């Protein structure tokens, strides 16, 4: 069974909403983020599917394919990887290698996991992730904890979320003070 991995940039107060402007796509211009980019590359290489909510999908579609001379490898990866967007309203995803998942979430995800393959990674996608967490479909959390408190914006774990106890798999510290925490659902 394939793992569904939720990977998020997250503030110290638990916010994953990028709209508050506390991180830039592909790394921040000021700090040396090469070690974070290495970690993301390792993650990409262990995955063969990207699962996204509609909003994140559209944001990525509107940004990454336009990047020229992207040395991070993210643009090429996103263009080529098998993408799955959860949406009941999208007709044409307009991005190569994309499948629209229109059915009931739990069934769609179980179906996706049942096929042979490597990790399925989800990132951003606040609404989708909230649903995945609530449905107990997440196998691993990879949280890049930023050394900031933001005070507003959607959190990864909203009130009344009950998640079974997690097992700490690994921690990794980066030059910029970001810490990666990896947890598996027991």
């Amino acid at each position, binding site marked *: 069974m394939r793992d569904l991995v939720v990977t998020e940039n997250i503030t*110290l*107060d*638990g916010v994953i909403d990028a709209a508050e402007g506390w991180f830039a796509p592909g790394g921040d211009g000021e700090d040396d983020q090469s070690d974070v980019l290495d970690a993301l590359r390792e993650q990409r290489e262990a995955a063969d599917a990207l699962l996204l909510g509609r909003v994140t999908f559209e944001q990525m579609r509107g940004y990454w394919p336009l990047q020229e001379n992207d040395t991070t490898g993210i643009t090429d990866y996103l263009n080529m990887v098998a993408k799955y967007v959860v949406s009941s309203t999208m007709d044409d995803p307009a991005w190569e290698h994309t499948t629209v998942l229109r059915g009931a979430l739990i069934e769609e995800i179980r179906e996706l996991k049942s096929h042979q393959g490597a990790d399925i990674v989800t990132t951003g996608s606040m609404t989708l992730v909230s649903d995945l967490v609530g449905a107990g479909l997440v196998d691993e959390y990879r949280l890049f*904890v930023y*050394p*900031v*408190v*933001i*005070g*507003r914006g959607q*959190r*990864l*774990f909203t*009130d*009344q*979320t*009950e*998640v079974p*106890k*997690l*097992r*700490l798999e*690994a*921690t990794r*510290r980066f030059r910029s*003070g*970001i*810490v990666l*925490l990896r*947890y598996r659902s027991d």
Partner: protein
Amino acid sequence: MRNLKAWLFVTLDGVMEAPEKWVMFNDEMGASTEADYAASDVLLLGKGTYEVFAASWPERSSDVPNADWMNNTPKLVASTTLKSLDWQNSSLIEGDVAAAVSQLKQEDGKGIIVNGSATLVRSLLRDGLLDELQLFVHPIVLGTGDRLFVEGEDRAALTLADSQAYANGVVSLTYTPAVETE
């Protein structure tokens, strides 16, 4: 200048309320907290945490880790509503807390420790008085309970000073306020 350090037990979703119900405390965490207590001679608390501590620590005998330090060390309580201080060596902070803490830091002495006391910790961070903030992040998502950081909190940029993964799955993250750059 005396060092003001706060540490809290928090869940992965940031809840710090009633840790006695869910805390996972092991020898490694014991060694870390014991070392911090040994380097300090004042315990600064908010009302909520003071009341919980005052109801439990006096009952603990000397063989309980940190019991002697907790009971014998002077406790300063930041509260305008607390009526009685039943725990030995406790006193209320008179007047403005920020001014009192600032004054305390300039006096001679060892470090100052804050445990729990989310509201107090937030105001110390806002006022630039907190030198270190250590979070013992537990591999638990509770869903309800008071959080350390609340909605509408001021933005804060911090610097990671240390991180430790413990054998029981708890992760310690220690932060200092970020240095202002021009």
